[in-house]
């Protein structure tokens, strides 16, 4: 559906990451963990931008995005009180029944800009999640306090300037060796997700990944955003963005 959503809160992280809290009661009432919004930008940009929902709280949706190009730059200039044209909730979302029904904790593993859609998982499994958050360096670390309110956070940076030194894969391996998790939920750059998917397979734990692909329509008609899976080609916008890691054909 289309909804006009007022920006209630605006915040910047790390100089170029924008957080909005949007009042969107109609979309919020239907939104599920792991779904995303398609945001309309300025007139010349005819394609909406897909941005993950980080948190659903009553009538409000929290989103975070990096300023990358003309569309996100336009969005970053909107202020509290401005109204955005949003389409959603889009995509299939994470499947949490199994994790919710388990006595074991789950692990959410986020890399860089991929951390945001994982926050809602920790809100639906409060303190039944460990959060492995991996960034390039201390300058890129953000949003940790949000995760700490509902999960136990483990931090890593590639250069060791904050938290453990190493990759997301290194951090996740360490955690999988110590704890017996029910399920792993991952989001981040493709090589990071592939690495964590392989670890989950190695340790015999079910794993869900949230993929990304260049989109146009965002509803499943244009077929621009396909990915290859074991069951054939799938649309990331509609059949995804969440897939079981062993379904994805990692290239």
């Amino acid at each position, binding site marked *: *559906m*289309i909804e006009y959503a007022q920006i209630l809160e605006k915040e910047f992280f790390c100089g170029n990451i924008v957080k909005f809290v949007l009042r969107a009661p109609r979309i919020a009432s239907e939104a599920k963990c792991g779904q995303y919004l398609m945001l*309309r930008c300025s*007139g*010349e*940009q*005819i*394609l*909406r931008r897909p941005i993950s929902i980080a948190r659903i709280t009553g009538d409000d949706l929290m989103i975070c995005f990096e300023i990358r190009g003309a*569309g996100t730059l336009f969005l970053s200039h909107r202020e509290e009180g401005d109204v955005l044209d949003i*389409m959603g909730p889009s995509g299939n979302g994470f499947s949490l029944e199994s994790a919710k029904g388990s006595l074991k904790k789950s692990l959410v593993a986020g890399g860089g800009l991929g951390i945001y859609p994982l926050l809602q998982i920790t809100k639906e499994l409060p303190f039944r999640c460990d959060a492995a958050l991996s960034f390039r360096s201390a300058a890129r670390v953000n949003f940790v306090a949000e995760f700490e309110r509902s999960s136990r956070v483990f931090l890593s940076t590639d250069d060791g300037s904050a938290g453990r030194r190493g990759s997301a894969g290194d951090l996740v391996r360490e955690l999988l060796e110590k704890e017996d998790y029910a399920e792993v939920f991952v989001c981040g750059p493709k090589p990071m997700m592939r690495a964590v998917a392989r670890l989950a397979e190695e340790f015999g734990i079910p794993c869900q990944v949230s993929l990304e*692909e*260049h*989109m*146009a*329509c*965002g*509803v*499943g*008609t*244009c*077929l*621009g*955003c*396909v*990915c290859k899976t074991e069951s054939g*080609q799938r649309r990331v916008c*509609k059949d995804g963005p969440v897939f079981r890691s062993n379904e994805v054909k990692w290239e």
Partner: protein
Amino acid sequence: MKTVDMTVDIAGVTLKNPVVTVSGTCGFGREYSEYYTADRLGAITVKGLTLEPREGNPTVRVAETPSGMLNSIGLQNPGVDAYIKRELPYLKGIGATVIANIAGNTIADYCRMASALTETQTDLIEVNISCPNVKCGGVAFGTDPVTVEKITAEIKKNTSKPVMVKLSPNVTDIAEIAKAAESGGADALSLINTLLGMRIDVKTRKPVLRNKVGGLSGPAVRPVALRMVWQVRKATGLPIIGMGGIAGVEDALEFLIAGANAVGVGTAMFTNPYAPIEIIDGLERYAAENGLERIRELSSSLIEE
């Protein structure tokens, strides 16, 4: 306010209003159904069909451009049989008028598909001639008038359904191509298909699209599409469905005035799924406000000195 007759006639098929959705932008009518069902439209043009199912090109297949976009989907579709068995029954079940778009590698492909569609409830066949002719080194069928006339004539031999040829704008003289389709027996014309374009990623110095080039659509192409509809209308009396960057009622009016009998809306739906409905309502309002009893009166009403 007196009711306006919003119907138009395209090759003997009555469309309930002059707005159709364009091939490749609305799948087979299911995805946008949460907004409105396809029976609200003058017609729905389904995704381009090929004889066999096709996976299409590797990603990246879409890219934004100023007031437009490029696509190199590569005709991913479930194949004409799946359309006949699965998609058409759904669309007819909800009362939609259906245009089946067909794309082939060879003239024989087009003929076999046209033949297969004849005994179905498909209302119109739209022939996509922008595909590369594999027997001619991959040059598009639609760039050579001799081929266009031949392909149209062969398709007409293989079906009793009305045949609408969708013209490619990547030609020197669109009126010549239109006349060739008419000579071949086309019952209607639709134009324009996408223009050929590209984008380059300056960080990697590689083309953004994996296929290197793709089809440009959206508001950026509208002046070209409009000019071509105007030119084709001067060259032929065949019914025309005009398309190319139409996003609102004013755009649609320009095309009707220039000579189109109906308009197609495509890329605009990605920005605003309601675009076709807003245009239908806007056209009805315009007609009522301007004392027109029938929307058809608007077609080819351009005043030229």
